[in-house]
């Protein structure tokens, strides 16, 4: 009796089993409610099917062939890359700079820290509407101020060249707070002694940053870059609320395009949209792996863990 109980216990308490116990609920939820729907969606990319599920015909790779010749798809791909590149580069740099300034403890900086996270807390839909009104070329506050300081009248979101940078700006405004908080946590983890030693050795602020701060936060930097890249490639809400993909399709992203193919434009081709989603998925996966590798190599060197 005791013998078998001990056996069971040793199995239960073994690291292997414990790991699975820890992961079990997450995996079940993800499997049933995310992975299986994903698989279904990908399978649909080989079919000609509409959202009514009324006619389901196998079509093989014809969807993919059609996508290759779809100029609007390539346009949305270009826009998505433009958005991602700008928002990751500028966003990460900005949130890191803010984190560096704000991580020290003073009243002023605590106030800043608190305020900078505020945009994260509100809904993108609500703030998208707010920014759209503020950026209206005629009745928006920003138009009023730019004209007050003597700039010519600008069309902001209605200008095909200005639209995307503005969307990126609003997006960064909304999200830099959360990347910043994560950076702050990482910055606080760097022992002060390193900096003290550097000051004694006469190293300037920039050298301290390059040689101490940057290597120490590299894993977190990698994390922020990867997650914001994935989010950027999948962007939908920002452009949907503020520009609907215009003007002249200059802010139409991949997800926006596939959404319109499936839900807004007849004949509501769910199969075609799923093919686009599949392509997007591979793009995201490949880019993530590349980014992961370039940050992971360094991660090993630093912490000696994992």
């Amino acid at each position, binding site marked *: 009796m005791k013998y078998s109980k001990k056996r069971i216990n040793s199995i239960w308490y073994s690291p292997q089993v414990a790991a699975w116990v820890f992961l079990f609920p997450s995996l079940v939820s993800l499997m049933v409610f995310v992975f299986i729907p994903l698989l279904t969606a990908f399978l649909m990319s080989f079919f000609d099917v509409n*959202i009514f599920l009324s006619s389901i015909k196998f079509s093989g790779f014809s969807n993919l062939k059609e996508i290759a010749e779809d100029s609007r798809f390539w346009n949305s791909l270009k826009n998505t890359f433009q958005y991602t590149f700008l928002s990751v580069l500028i966003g990460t740099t900005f949130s890191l700079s803010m984190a560096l300034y704000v991580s020290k403890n003073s009243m002023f900086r605590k106030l800043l820290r608190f305020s900078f996270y505020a945009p994260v807390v509100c809904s993108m839909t609500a703030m998208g509407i707010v920014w759209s009104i503020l950026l209206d070329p005629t009745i928006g506050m920003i138009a009023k101020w730019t004209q007050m300081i003597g700039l010519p009248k600008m069309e902001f979101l209605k200008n095909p060249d200005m639209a995307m940078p503005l969307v990126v700006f609003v997006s960064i405004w909304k999200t830099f707070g959360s990347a910043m908080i994560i950076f702050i946590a990482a910055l606080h983890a760097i022992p002060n002694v390193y900096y003290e030693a550097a000051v004694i050795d006469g190293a300037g602020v920039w050298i301290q940053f390059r040689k101490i701060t940057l290597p120490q936060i590299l894993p977190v930097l990698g994390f922020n870059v990867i997650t914001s890249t994935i989010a950027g490639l999948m962007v939908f809400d920002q452009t949907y609320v503020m520009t609907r993909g215009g*003007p002249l399709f200059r802010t139409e992203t991949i997800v926006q395009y596939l959404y319109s193919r499936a*839900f807004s434009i*007849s*004949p*509501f081709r769910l199969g075609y949209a799923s093919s686009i989603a599949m392509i997007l998925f591979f793009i995201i996966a490949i880019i993530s792996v590349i980014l992961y590798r370039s940050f992971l190599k360094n991660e090993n060197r630093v912490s000696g863990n994992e």
Partner: protein
Amino acid sequence: MKRILLFLVLITCMVSMVFAAGSKEDVSTVTKGTEISFWNGFTASDGDILREIFDRFNAENPQDIKVDMDIMPWANMLEKLAVSVSTKTGPTLILLGLENIPEYSESGALLSLNDFWEWSGLDKENYSPNVLKAFQYNNNTYGIPMQYNSHYLYWNKDLFKEAGLDPEKPPKNFSEFIEYAERLSDPTKEQYGYAFAADSAVITNFLWSNGGDWLTADNTKSAINSPEAIQVFKMFQDFSKNKISPTGMTGADLDNLFYAGKVAMYINGPWLIAGCREKGIDFGIGSIPASDSGNKEFIGTGVAFMITSSATEEQKIAAYEVIKYWLSKDILKEWTLRNGFPAWSQEVLDDPEVQKNLIQSELGTITQYTRVPFEGLPESTQILSDYVNPILEQLTYLKISPSEAAEKMEEGINKVLKNR
């Protein structure tokens, strides 16, 4: 003997007819207390009126039908509708723009409503034939009109006075329209003479009045590459070029500009009326300018009641009761007077209150000149989204010439139609 036989046969016939009629009654009257779900996209203030009307229906209808109304933004409703119908979890009754009737009925999502008129006993002659025809598809009825409207010319009377124009005399034809628009524009004050969004709907009014059309009469080929169309395209491009209209605005943006008093003339549906009153704009409303030769033909659009294939026979009959309630004089009149949408039922048009209402009597006269664009064509939304509207946008951004625009549209439209 023969007489008795004859008499018996007659009696039998009469009795069986009564029974037959009686059983027909049983099938097509609703069970008391049936509940039906009703989806629509009437967010904003007209949704409030709708809710009020249906709360009253729920409380007062003698068959105790309960309508469970779910209002959500149209985009979300379309997301849910298709998949819910295909899993039989869909609503019984929906409201949907009539342009969706062709493709939704093709996909099997809708029940045929061919027996509605007979069942309801309503006088079909009372309702505008123009309007009823607009909701037909392939000679079948899949949608019963809930509201119908055209586009109308709105003008800001104060701005007219400032420019030295008679506020009671809107432009009557294209030439006057262009002239007024130029006089009413003032870039230094950010004032626009006539503002429009790059959407095919508004342009259709001018296109038709000028004698052009999107498709040939049998809906098989494009007819857009014509001098009449190019004239209209040029007129609109000039509006953008000369800063008579702002570029790239959506309908909602333009509504705001009009409310802010920055737009002198504007063409839109009836929903602007309530907003103008609320914002205190001294506005005039009337018919869109006709062509210089006096021809007028305007766009008609509307929202229809439809019953989805998720409905049981019971629920379908209950929905019929709801639709019949809506088509009554009182309700249609209420919708017209409170919400501003023109009447298309003769008894409402004849009602003294409606006739006294200056706006409604004006709008009521325009309905006869309207028809629905791309009538009965399932590919209409595809043509508009993929080709017509984007090319119109390029036109207003001065990226292509009017004749290029017409050519490209023709190419696109024919491409879509070829795949039919």
